[in-house]
């Protein structure tokens, strides 16, 4: 199951996303939570200690690379092994929920 939680800021989006992830994991599912908010705070709702939450590395942009296409144009593609990326970045919290966090927005602009 792949679900995105959306909505206006302050509606409880992150609380619901985090609690849903934990509830699924407690039910025996393997869960990957992805924090795609530019003001990330899913880690705390998932129950990662603050110290650990602060040390999480966001997904770096270097995971994307420009690849030439047969028609002469270039395309930006995800160039890494996703399972390796999940091991290298992010963290594992209570109930085994794995968390990946978006890199910081706004440096370097258009990509």
């Amino acid at each position: 199951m792949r679900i995105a939680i959306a909505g206006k800021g302050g509606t409880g989006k992150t609380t619901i996303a985090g609690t849903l992830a934990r509830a699924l994991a407690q039910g025996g599912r393997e869960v990957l939570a992805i924090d795609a908010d530019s003001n990330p705070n899913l880690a705390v709702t998932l129950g990662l200690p603050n110290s650990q939450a602060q040390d999480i590395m966001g997904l770096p942009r270097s995971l994307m690379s420009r690849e030439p296409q047969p028609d002469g144009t270039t395309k930006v593609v995800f160039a890494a092994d996703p399972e390796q990326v999940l091991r290298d970045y992010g963290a594992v919290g209570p109930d085994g929920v794995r968390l990946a966090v978006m890199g910081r927005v706004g440096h370097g602009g258009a990509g």
Partner: protein
Amino acid sequence: MCSAHATVRGLLGELVARGGNGRDIIVDMEAGLEHLSRGTGRHVSRILAVLEPYYRSMETVRRIAELAAELGVAEVAVIANKVRDQADQQAIREFCRSHGLEIVAEIPYDASLAESERAGHPPIDHAPAAPAVAAIRRLASQLTG
């Protein structure tokens, strides 16, 4: 296009392409609408839009659903949150009915959740018996059932 978002989308796309290894994936999306046009919605099977019983929140959800339909991305359903009473419930149900939106969960307003958040504790540990947590657990079993 913002490359931080593009990286998340790239990771999601790759995970999905490889079958996701049997995991459930929950994405906490950027507030608002922009993320949809950036395409995150393409890699999920469903977008659950959190709606509170007040006009601007309901309007945002309506626009999310409209935009998702326009872009042809995942189907949108509603999680009603902070539902205080029958009047809230009726207002939300009426709004969703008139816009053809399915409600997958109604989460009651629950002070212990706000308290957990203030203290920086996960509600599921801090207030495991709270009605709102129970509603989210029901949603989890419904989604996997």
